[in-house]
């Protein structure tokens, strides 16, 4: 039994963290946050050089051919660095194409996605988190109508995978006639969400239906959970470092139990999450019968722990914690988005209950 990361996986995570440290330091994140027109193309290009866009794309299509666990580790590194890049579509769109696309669709899109030439967005918010504001996309005669909200990376995507109200999945081109996009300004300044409107947009159906949609949902939950885990790690590390340095009443505040117990509580909440996120990601391929429930709990628990860590780390930093100068708020807000996206913890836990026949 081996419940641990491989040497390759540890290296992947370390080198991605290094790449992000060079390409996307906090100043770069800040610039992205301040300028809504900045697409952070330099950051994306650095990640494309790294091979990240092809992380789960099979090697014959130019990707790295890795697993969801590897993708989750990458997501963790992105969360830790509050990287201003959309990642959900990087993983979910290839999974949709591999799971429900024809050979021709795969041959057309996967190599371009793997090379990072085209980015993809996956619009499954209504199907997973529920429809708000009258959203919902219907398909009729190969045309899509309606709107979908909260699409990560949806503003720039050249390929859009969208779920209809019946749980079917469709593939639409970013330049298709009748597609319009608007930015949904959100709390998290490191990632952008789009509202996509379809007015008779030509689309190709994907096979797989609700079952494939369920797989995309599970993978999405795991990626968000991993991103939160990375963000939590960063917030705990920053709190501990600050508490070891900041002096009040003649001693470092980290020597007060009131402060160090806050750090201990964060660590005690985060570590079991790490084990759960690893397992949920592993189960996605290795134990599919456990994948949905473990993904749901990983998403819900990291949401709760994320909220606790976000506020506790901020408090350890005292007044500095809430300033823009320190920038801790980028992690705070990233965890905030992760909590709500693809369902808040209450909704996800209700789905978890349903998965076990404990709820209607």
């Amino acid at each position, binding site marked *: *039994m081996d419940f641990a990361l491989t040497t390759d996986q540890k290296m992947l995570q370390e080198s991605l963290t290094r790449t992000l440290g060079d390409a996307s330091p906090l100043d770069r994140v800040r610039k992205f946050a301040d300028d809504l027109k900045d697409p952070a193309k330099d950051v994306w290009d650095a990640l494309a050089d790294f091979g990240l866009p092809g992380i789960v794309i099979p090697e014959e299509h130019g990707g790295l051919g890795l697993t969801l666990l590897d993708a989750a580790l990458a997501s963790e590194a992105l969360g830790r660095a509050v990287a201003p890049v959309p990642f959900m579509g990087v993983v979910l769109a290839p999974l949709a194409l591999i799971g429900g696309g024809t050979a021709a669709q795969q041959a057309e899109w996967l190599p371009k996605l793997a090379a990072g030439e085209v980015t993809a967005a996956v619009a499954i918010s209504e199907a997973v988190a529920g429809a708000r504001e009258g959203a919902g996309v219907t398909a009729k005669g190969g045309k899509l109508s309606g709107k979908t909200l909260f699409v990560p990376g949806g503003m720039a995507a050249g390929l859009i995978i969208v779920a209809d109200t019946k749980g079917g999945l469709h593939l639409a081109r970013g330049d298709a006639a009748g597609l319009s996009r608007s930015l949904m300004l959100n709390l998290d300044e490191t990632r952008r969400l789009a509202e996509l409107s379809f007015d008779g947009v030509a689309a190709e159906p994907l096979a797989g239906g609700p079952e494939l949609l369920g797989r995309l949902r599970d993978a999405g939950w795991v990626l968000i959970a991993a991103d939160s885990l990375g963000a939590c790690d960063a917030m705990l590390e920053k709190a501990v470092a600050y508490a070891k340095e900041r002096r009040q009443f003649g001693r470092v505040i980290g020597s007060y139990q009131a402060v160090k117990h806050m750090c201990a509580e964060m660590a*005690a909440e985060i570590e079991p999450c790490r084990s*759960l996120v*690893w397992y949920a990601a592993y189960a996605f391929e290795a134990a599919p019968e456990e994948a949905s429930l*473990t993904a749901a709990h990983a998403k819900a628990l990291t949401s709760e722990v994320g909220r606790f860590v976000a506020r506790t780390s901020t408090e350890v930093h005292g007044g500095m914690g809430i300033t823009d100068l320190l920038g801790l708020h980028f992690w705070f807000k990233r965890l905030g988005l992760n909590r709500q996206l693809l369902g808040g913890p209450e909704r996800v836990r*209700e789905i978890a209950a349903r998965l076990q026949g404990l709820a209607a």
Partner: protein
Amino acid sequence: MDLTPTPEMLAFRDDVRGFLKAHAADFSAGQARDVFAWQRLLIEHGYAARTIPKAFGGYGAEPDILKSRIIAEEFIAAGAPRGMAGQGISMLVPTLLEVGSEEQKTRWIGPTLRGEIIWCQGYSEPDAGSDLASLQTKAVEDGSDFLISGSKIWTSTAAQAQMMFCLVRTEPDAAKHEGISYILIPMSTPGIEVRPLKTMTGSAEFNEVFFTDVRVAQDQVVGGRGRGWFVANATLKHDRGMLGDPNATEARLGALIELMKTEVVDGRRIIDNPVFRDRLMQLQGRAMAMKFNGLRLISAQLSQEPVGVAGLVVKLQGCELNHQVAALAIDALGELGILYHDGPHLRARGTWQRNYMFDLGLIIGGGTAQIQKNIISERGLGMPREPKPAVL
């Protein structure tokens, strides 16, 4: 990550199942018909005292954490009683194996494993709880003996035990941690008085033990005079590891789900109430995280990697979780949840209520939650210790 069982492990699981099937008549409802015979049988087959050398009465297998886990899982699945698990077996035996003399090992380990000798642990004192090293029970030299005076508290099984492994201060002038010895005391020695310590559960799960000039031979010291603190610490690790065991949580959570599916209020099952259902799901998520955290720790031990913070949080998080599971069961029972002791409406013989109270004791005992947080922040996160106050 690779959790696929090897053929060797699959075969081992079959062996355990085969054994339990063949001996199904020897136990029922988790109880052995003859606990001593059952214990001997388990040792003979390697399902108890598995890694203790044959020479000292064990089975003599190499340590294999996966096989131990399989044994635990299959025994739980079959509702079979595990081997005896008193503090003698879980704490004294590993200590003797590590630092005991050959004479001590030969004399004590075998009978302890077979359940012929029951031990109790004499560590905590009224004024030495979290700060255990400040213990004051003194052992004064008198010829080739010590005369022991003082008192111990939180001593489980003191009333049944024939022997106590005990921490006493033998060198009053030495530094706090260096004046302590680990000594074995027959409970029948004159001068020992045991008083049951009744807790809020209504039972006396613990005792107080008082010593007045209790005469014990000096050669009953284990691991060297003045070395007791280090001897005890070597096995306290095992004690903390047991508290918060995720297997126990999983079993209780399963019982809680059953409870919520069967209990009905106003004609509606508790599980159909979304508030209770959400609380259940919250605990299930936490229990799942602790279960996989346990697997991660086992795996780290197998590959001899440091477990880090993930290991330090088990006692804190596991005990809290168990308490929360019992709390939800009581809440789900509504007014039925306040029943206790006995009566026609009492559920599960009051187990939930007892756990709710006893588990709070476990949050405190074996290193309080606050001590655990000190350990996590100091050893796990490298934060500084609280400076000693200048004036007491």
